[in-house]
């Protein structure tokens, strides 16, 4: 654990201050959404209570995800065809960059994240002058996580540590904050699920400065059915391997 750039001493100082209104004004929260009609209003509603700029990217949902957001004060972009979560994230990131974002936050639409975790992420990013701050459920809390899910994530973690050399404690956590200046280096080309590992790849390759902040991930019955199955890990592995061949 001493390998980690984010030691416990720093962890105690990061929550000291709140994110200022000016900082919120230059922050965009990017929410990729695919068939989240049942929960998207709750997720965005709770996010709205803390964040100023929110862009939801509807990856051509077949349900009423986009309609549910009608009247909420958020930007909604809709993909004309379904291209994947990684692609949706990148679309939202481009939007944020074109609208003057200095800081960007990625946030999952299924309600597994706690919006109040964004604040420590942002203050750590800003005060410690880092390129990117990653949320870690294993430094924080993983409520309702199943044994198989934990095992799956540990396996993915071992693979990622090996391939990137980054001493991270969590992978595939959708909650992160990064600077607009780091966005070009972080550009997502993995359209589907491998983007989370790809981001870590980019961090290692571009030698970005980074830290992890404890976050809470809440596994509801809903997010579990929506999330990856254990076989998903194998899919991600293949996407990464073949993605590498392509580069």
């Amino acid at each position: 654990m001493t390998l980690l750039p984010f030691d416990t001493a720093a962890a105690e100082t990061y929550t000291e201050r709140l994110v200022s209104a000016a900082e919120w004004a230059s922050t965009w929260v990017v929410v990729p959404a695919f068939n989240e009609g049942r929960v998207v209003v709750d997720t965005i509603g709770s996010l709205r209570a803390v964040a100023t700029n929110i862009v939801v990217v509807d990856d051509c949902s077949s349900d009423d995800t986009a309609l549910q957001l009608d009247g909420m004060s958020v930007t909604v972009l809709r993909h004309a065809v379904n291209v994947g979560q990684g692609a949706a994230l990148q679309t939202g990131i481009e939007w944020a960059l074109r609208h003057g974002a200095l800081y960007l936050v990625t946030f999952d639409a299924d309600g597994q994240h706690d919006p109040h975790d964004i604040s420590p992420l942002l203050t750590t990013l800003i005060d410690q002058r880092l390129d990117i701050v990653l949320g870690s459920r294993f430094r924080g809390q993983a409520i309702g996580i199943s044994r198989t899910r934990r095992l799956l994530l540990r396996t993915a973690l071992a693979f990622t540590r090996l391939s990137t050399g980054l001493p991270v404690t969590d992978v595939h956590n959708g909650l992160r904050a990064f600077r607009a200046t780091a966005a070009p280096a972080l550009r997502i080309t993995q359209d589907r699920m491998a983007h989370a590992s790809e981001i870590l790849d980019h961090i290692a390759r571009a030698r970005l400065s980074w830290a992890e902040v404890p976050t809470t991930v809440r596994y509801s019955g809903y997010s579990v059915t929506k999330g990856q199955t254990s076989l998903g890990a194998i899919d991600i592995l293949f996407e990464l391997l073949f993605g590498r061949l392509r580069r």
Partner: protein
Amino acid sequence: MILFRLVLLLLTGAFMLYFLVLVRRSAIKRLFVAAFFGTGAAFVLMPELANRIAWFFGIGRGADFVFYLSTVFLFFLVFNIYLKFTALEARQTQLVRELALRHPSQEPGAESVA
């Protein structure tokens, strides 16, 4: 046998012409196509050649050698198509992204256009 060879040669020639016309952009690909069909034609005209090459590689028959060669070639082709396909997907993503960015279906404060 003569007729069979003649038909094979004609087919090979026709395919070669077709692909040479089709592959307009790169000289390397044209050379590759010509070499591939040229080899095919040579094997049709001189089956002994295939046998001799096969023996050289320690393979029993020329037909087996041709079969292995075609397997390798087909694998190469499939891989090539896979690469093309992923490149095409990346372009599709770019298009979809640009479209979404240009026409937001909802913006805060503005009337909904969704």
